């Protein structure tokens, strides 16, 4: 790992160098009913639009590698057959300017399934490989439990990671592209004072976590508590609306639909992200629904994240960003759900 420090005014220069590409970063999208700013990732055209001190974006960066709707292939249909066209929908590299550690870790988790599995997903791979990611440190929000999930710091999956030292940034360089880039701005090796400031920033951050999920023996407890009445209680609240999965940075379940165009000479195959909470998610041909109750569907979302995935990959599919709980109108949050299943309120 190579570390550098640079003055804050150099950041605009860094952005300028990268702005030949499409730059995506956190921007203010409006204010909530209490007057607090609402952030989301969007294409940034001006450095001043970037809100690098953002708390958390409403939606995760997932959609830039895993769009909510994506045309997988189109077909030109004729009398004798059809011609298939595949477009991976990868056009240009994308620069992510200011991604928190949880979201970087979320992409790393998606990689396990979509990039490093036996059958990598070319649509995902094409977009993922074309990312240049600048990470940025954060201040924990009340809903953040990334520390419980071990995703509060990013070890890999980014090019450059910045930590705010007050006057300047402490930069962690992970790729040759990032190294070359930093060579084009004024930066230096960290001094003993910079190192002290960096440690101070990291230690300070750790004091601010309030939400917590107890993960010890969680796979086993979930196994044992399959029939727990806690699931029914949460199921009663659940709206089965899929909001949690849509804002989640790691939910990747999907459905595929085929459409025939009105002119009957073209057709397309579209993939749409789904949610296991939706009532029609586990409905199969013939009309049988394997999970007809909202409690059973909600339960499976937790089992996928905190049990099945852990057993398969030795890590959870949750990064503890807390977006699902923050977005849930019924106030269903992972720390509370897991605590209730573990038997501690």
């Amino acid at each position, binding site marked *: 790992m190579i570390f550098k420090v640079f003055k804050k005014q150099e950041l605009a220069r860094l952005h300028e160098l990268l702005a030949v590409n499409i730059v995506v970063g956190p921007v203010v*999208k*409006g204010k*909530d*009913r209490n007057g607090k700013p*609402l952030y*989301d990732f969007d294409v940034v055209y001006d450095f001043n639009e970037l809100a690098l001190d953002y708390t958390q974006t*409403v*939606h995760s960066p997932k*959609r830039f590698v895993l769009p*909510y*709707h994506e045309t997988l292939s189109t077909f030109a*249909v*004729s*009398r*004798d*057959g*059809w011609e298939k066209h595949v477009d991976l929908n990868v056009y240009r590299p994308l620069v992510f300017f200011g991604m928190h550690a949880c979201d970087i870790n979320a992409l790393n988790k998606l990689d396990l399934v979509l990039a490093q599995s036996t059958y990598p997903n070319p649509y995902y791979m094409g977009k993922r490989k074309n990312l240049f990611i600048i990470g940025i440190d954060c201040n924990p929000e009340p809903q953040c439990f990334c520390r419980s999930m071990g995703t509060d710091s990013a070890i890999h999956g980014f090019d450059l990671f910045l930590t705010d030292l007050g006057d300047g940034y402490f930069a962690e360089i992970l790729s040759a592209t990032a190294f070359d880039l930093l060579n084009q701005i004024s930066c230096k090796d960290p001094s003993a004072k910079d190192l002290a400031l960096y440690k101070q920033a990291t230690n300070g951050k750790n004091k601010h976590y309030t939400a917590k999920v107890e993960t010890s023996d969680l796979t086993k407890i979930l196994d044992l508590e399959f029939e727990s009445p806690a699931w029914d209680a949460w199921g*009663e*609240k*659940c*709206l*089965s*609306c*899929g*909001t949690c999965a*849509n*804002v989640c940075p790691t939910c990747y379940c999907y459905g595929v639909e085929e*459409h*025939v*165009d*009105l*002119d*009957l000479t073209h057709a397309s195959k579209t993939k*749409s*992200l789904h*949610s296991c909470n*939706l*009532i*029609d998610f586990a*409905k199969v041909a013939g009309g049988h629904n394997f999970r007809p109750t*909202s409690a059973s569907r909600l339960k499976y979302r937790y089992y996928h994240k905190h049990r099945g995935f852990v057993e398969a990959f030795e890590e959870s599919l949750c990064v503890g960003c807390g977006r699902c709980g923050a*977005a849930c*109108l*019924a106030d269903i949050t992972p720390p509370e759900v897991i605590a209730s299943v573990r038997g501690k309120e």
Partner: protein
Amino acid sequence: MSEPLSYLGVALARPKVGFFELSSCEGCQLQLLNNEATLLDFLNLVEIVNFREGMSERGDNYDIAFVEGSVTRKDEITRLTEIRKNAKILVALGSCACFGGVNQLKNRFRDLDWVKKEVYGDFPIETMEVHPLADFVQVDLSIFGCPIKKEEVERIVTDLVVGKTVRHPEYPVCMECKANENICLFELGEPCLGPVTRAGCDAWCTSNRRGCWGCRGPAEGANLKQLEKIMHTYGFDREIILDRLECFGGFASFTQTAPTQDKKSPARRKKS
């Protein structure tokens, strides 16, 4: 007439369709004529034999009848029964046909004579309580929405022509709203029926920053009990929820069983 329809070399029958309206604004039918970019392809897919809003000829030899509007008069029952007899498939087009629509707000009043007087004054006409089509005839397919979404009707008609199963989303609008990357309207201080209303509109209203009024009726397994709690948490009173739930009639089964709900008396309504 245009050349025979075929898909992948397989000949397809071009269904004869008729469009009809009962009590309604005819806006749903207008929607069908609105999308000029695809209108010719749409017209090529079906043979329209009856469409008062779009052509002068009238025929009764249709396979599929699209009926817009609700039933509010006795002669409409006769007409609807006739259409049902002629059609192989009867489609309820739009929220009025599916649930009674905005028209059924009238049913919320105890005294229908008072309603008649308020609306028609000294020129009363014969009307009764508002009913959806399914109260009188068998409805084979419902197309929800006020108005219907042209893209959805195009997809459904294409599916009917090529013989695919027509499916509606069973989940609520929230799913589509979030996929459109919207910020929740509750967060922005607006009430919304998105969490309980059937999706399929691609979150048309909420994507334009207007809270959902539930025109497509309830999602399967809609959790109204929780919605009530949410509305309360976000500071919206019961009247606001009921105004929305009652607007299009899709939630009739929920609002009628609500314990504190009573039919509005004319006096109370007049004050507001």
